[in-house]
């Protein structure tokens, strides 16, 4: 297995110093080149899980192996794309994309590498622009190019299109699918959108909340591009909604009782 998540737990201490389970008994394996979505309602710990895989957050217990190496810290083998583009505003597009390449190759090589990936997200003509001159969708594409340019085996994406409008999101779905087919990266994609996960992924890992656990692992066996299979996609959506509804009801009723008691 390329990524193995083994018995991962994550606890936080709340205000009264009581441990709260964020993630409980997470076991998951991902094959090389697989596109896996992690789907769940807000608060289920899906972003925390991704952050642990990235090495940015420490698990309370359990271990994660990527390519048979135990994860202890962030590394260039795992590129990360956040919900906000997180581009450095003092650098232009080219300098942002070459940021991770500076140490390991010459300037010229780095720029060639960057240019190649900027063309992949169709921003080859924007190398001299600064982030504040780009739209949200363009910024996110630069962020994807930046993550790809360091040639990681794995791409971790934390609701990367969550802050974008519907049309932009649909366009970027297409681009991401092309990039994935072209580069064969292993992608872990966190989202709360059921349709997004069905459209993009080979497998959907459905998470429940309080504590965050994996409740279903669903294979999506539809040919790509999937626009033609609207009916089948809707069926899967209904199927997943069945699992999620209980979880969402749980969150809502808890919020209501919290509101009533405060």
């Amino acid at each position, binding site marked *: 297995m390329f990524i193995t998540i083994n018995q991962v737990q994550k606890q936080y201490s709340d205000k009264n110093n009581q441990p709260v389970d964020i993630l409980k008994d997470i076991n998951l394996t991902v094959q090389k080149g697989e596109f896996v979505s992690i789907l769940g309602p807000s608060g289920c710990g899906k972003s925390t899980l991704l952050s642990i895989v*990235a090495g940015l957050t420490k698990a309370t217990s359990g271990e994660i192996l990527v390519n048979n190496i135990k994860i202890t810290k962030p590394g*260039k083998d795992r590129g990360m794309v956040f919900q906000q583009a997180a581009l*450095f505003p*003092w650098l232009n597009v080219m300098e942002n994309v070459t*940021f991770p390449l500076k140490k390991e190759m010459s300037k010229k090589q780095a720029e060639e590498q960057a240019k190649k990936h900027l063309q992949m997200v169709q921003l080859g003509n924007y190398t001299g622009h600064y982030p*504040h001159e780009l739209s949200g969708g363009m910024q996110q594409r630069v962020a994807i190019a930046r993550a790809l340019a*360091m040639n990681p085996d794995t791409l971790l994406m934390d609701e990367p299109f969550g802050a974008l409008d519907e049309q932009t999101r649909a366009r970027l779905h297409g681009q991401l699918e092309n990039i994935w087919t072209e580069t064969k990266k292993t992608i872990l994609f966190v989202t709360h959108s059921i349709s997004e996960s069905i459209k993009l992924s080979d497998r959907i890992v459905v998470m429940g909340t309080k504590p965050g656990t994996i409740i279903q692992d669903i294979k999506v066996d539809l040919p790509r591009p999937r626009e033609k299979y609207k009916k089948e996609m809707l069926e899967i959506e209904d199927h997943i909604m069945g699992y999620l509804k209980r979880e969402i009801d749980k969150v809502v009723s808890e919020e209501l009782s919290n509101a009533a008691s405060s």
Partner: protein
Amino acid sequence: MQPAVKRIIFFAAIIAFWEIGSRLELWMPIILPSPTMVWDALVTGFEDKTLIYDLAASFKRLAIGLGISLVIGMGLGVLLAKSKTADETLGTVILALQSVPSIVWLPLAIMWFGMNEKAVIFVVVLGGAFVMTLNVRVGIKNVSPLYIKAAQTMGARGWDLFARVIFPASIPYMVTGARLAWAFAWRALMAGELLSTGPGLGYTLRYASDFGNMSLVIGVMIIIGVIGSIVDQLIFQRVEKSVLQRWGLES
């Protein structure tokens, strides 16, 4: 109406009122000399070059003092932001010192360095250093965690992370800090010169006052104000604005 036009009309009205009041002898010239007298005093001052020497001397002290204070402020600011212990000990002292007008250090400075330029520069340094320190500290502490996380996933850590991400990300705060440091340093310089030795704008101001030359007193006050606002508006505010825009903090 353009703001510039409004301003011109406003200043013209004030000067006209001032001149007419003086001509009608509503007040004595020793209390408030007329604008023409102030103008004459300024022209004489520039013609015999005393004011030019004063400006050169004052700016030299300011440049040295402000330069030192920015370097100190940068160093202390980074230290306070990075070390919790330093912040909890030295930080409180700096916060207290920041509320002390730096001119009150002058008597001590004269004892330490003598009645000379060093004493004035010392006061200028104290005027600018603490406000710079506090801004650099806040700037570094306020760097978005997202930038740091993103940089970490790209392999940056330690000094590399600081030099390539944390430092540049806090530049907007440093520019604001430098602007405030300049304003405090400029005030400290004038007070220092007024109370110590020349040449310098502040010294000439006191000299003129000792000889009852109120026209020159007002003339020098006008020079101080004009320089203060020119440097602030034409240099610092522009730099600050373009930095804020580039850093995406202002559209």
